[in-house]
């Protein structure tokens, strides 16, 4: 089962290595991990997607909290949240096929951010499933290059999040 966890961490060298090392040492599988700045320059937020059962999720959460430089951990197990994944994909598109690809991108509300003679680059964001569907659709044209950020997530509205610490 897929779980989304966010961790607010001190913005210090070595923190990412610590978190990544803990996952490796304890045999937890990271599906994706995103680190970014927050509104507070001293803190960063990691959004981590892990695959595992509830028991594993609980251990991941507690082990993350145990890291001294981790300020707060939240899992989205019982709360409603919005998730987004951002993708840049360069698709083969000869002049004859270009219109088809542009139309597909449009159907998915993607944006064309670069056009070349033999290819197009599409920017697309959304939940993971939407990105997967788009990849399926453009596969036949040929994917030259693809890069994704991995999931970031925030809760919906003002619900009480399941926070510890």
């Amino acid at each position, binding site marked *: 089962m897929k779980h989304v966890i966010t961790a607010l*961490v001190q913005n210090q060298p*070595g923190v990412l290595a610590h978190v990544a090392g803990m996952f490796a*040492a304890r045999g937890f599988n990271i599906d994706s991990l995103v680190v970014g700045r927050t509104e507070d320059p001293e803190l960063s937020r990691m959004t981590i997607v892990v695959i595992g059962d509830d028991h594993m999720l609980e251990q991941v959460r*507690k*082990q993350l909290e*145990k890291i*001294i430089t981790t*300020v707060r951990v939240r899992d989205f197990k019982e709360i409603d949240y919005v998730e987004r994944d951002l993708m840049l994909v360069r698709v083969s598109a000869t002049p004859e096929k270009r219109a088809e690809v542009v139309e597909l991108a449009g159907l998915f509300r993607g944006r064309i951010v670069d056009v070349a003679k033999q290819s197009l680059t599409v920017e697309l964001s959304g939940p993971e499933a939407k990105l997967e569907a788009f990849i399926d659709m453009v596969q036949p044209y040929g994917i030259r290059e693809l890069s994704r950020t991995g999931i970031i997530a925030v809760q919906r509205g003002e619900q009480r999040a399941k926070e510890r*610490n």
Partner: protein
Amino acid sequence: MSKSTKTASKRTKGYAGMTGADLFHKMLLEEGVEVLFGVPGGALLPIFDSLYKTPIKFVLTRHEQGAAHMADGYARSTGKVGVCIATSGPGATNLVTGLATAYMDSVPMVAITGQVTSALIGNDAFQEADTTGITRPVTKHNMLIKRAEDIGRAIHEAFYIARTGRPGPVLIDIAKDATSNELSTEPDLTIDLPGYKPMLTGHIRQVKAAAKAINASKQPVLYVGGGVVISEASEILDKVAHRGNIPVTTTLMALGAFDESDPLALQMPGMHGTAVANYAIQECDCLIAVGARFDDRVTGKVETFAPHAKIIHVDIDPTSISKNVKTDIPVVGDAKDILEKMLPMIESKQRKDWLGQIAKWKKAYPLHYDTGAKIKPQQVVEAVGRLTDHDAIITTGVGQHQMWTAQFYGWRKPRRMITSGGLGTMGFGLPAAIGAQFGNPGKTVIDIDGDGSLAMTVGELVTAVHYNQPVKVVVLDNCYLGMVRQWQEMFYERRYSATEHPCPDLSLIAEAFGAKGIRTTEPGELDDAINEMLKHDGPVVLAASVEPEENVFPMVAAGKGLHEMDMGRLV
């Protein structure tokens, strides 16, 4: 919850212009450091120059691993933070085993390592290693300090983290120029750890739920671990046990936390635990784990562990709860605080049937060995216990001798058994004993060791002689790596692959190092030899040639349930 931001220094001004090294020593003194174990080196020269002037006692060890184990033995025997220091590169990597040992057993320690000059970091400079990278998985926390102004705060944070919550080793890696440079401004000495809030007090609702379950149970067992020693909860544990008439089993890390001469004592559980402890766990209807972590050496096959029990788990570390065994009633917090809250809620009970059953098991399956023409290792441990009135500080290496020490010394008080439980570090015994002796001047400190374990750190005998620390080393000398040999005998049809080794005369080695050496081979001379050792005012090695193929029993084989014990020759 404790505050994570506070000023740790008594003085906060007047440090500008001082060198980083001088500030380093001021801060160690403020933290109450009396003794520092270590080895100097290039990256530490400014610190050692400053050390020349301070009242902190410096103990030069033969090897950095020895320094770490000495700091560890000092910490475990006193409850204070132990401090060790090593230079960059190989000095730091040599500390790693000692850090991992302390980390697994929750020992409060601060390790200082020198690092190459900050401008050279990352350049593969001479004696450079990525110390924070290497030690991250074996420390509670670590940090790299590149500026003189940051040294004070780092030291206060390190000591605070090391001794609070679930204690552990903290490493500070300090670039050479941070110690040689003068502070350009007043340093900020405020501890700022927004993410560090150890749970100290137990939630009263959980304590009540636990007490209710205990009162409702007919056959409860207290399963007590090292957390009880760390939180100094032995006295309150004794009260809880006696009020509820609850038998107590003490893990390797908790030996002495409950007096083994008490009728409620079940002694050690697990792989080489007593039959009564293991049967009691398997038959109990309520298992109260306090400061223990359900290690695989305690649980045996986890699926069949304590099958009828409601499980209460008191622990300061939330990650320990439901990690190996699913907990019914978790209580997160300090063991002493929780037991104090729990005591008045515990109903006084007779538990006649249950205690009767316990007494029957004790009588039917006591710890046991046969005597013979040769000295039996168990006999040595028993004699040491008797002749030291069960009150010496004992350290051990790892293996058969460690298990016999656990089984036969006769533990009465906490902080007497100093042993590497989690990591199982051979070579721990001698340096740990030296560290414990520094922390307990005038007390008898004995390393009961194996010949295999002792060989790994025997060089530290020089340290004992150098500082005239009267540690005693009793070697159960069997010329084997005995525990591995036992497994080869039992599970690999006696194919003794790489477990036999030459048997040097360890008493002569002791003499060559400037210590006293005694060798004994006759069971009848054992008491005299031990008394001679105890009487000598200085370090002694007593090598006792013991029955080489003696095995440790009872034994729960790997992957078996606790009830599937092999009792050895008894049955």
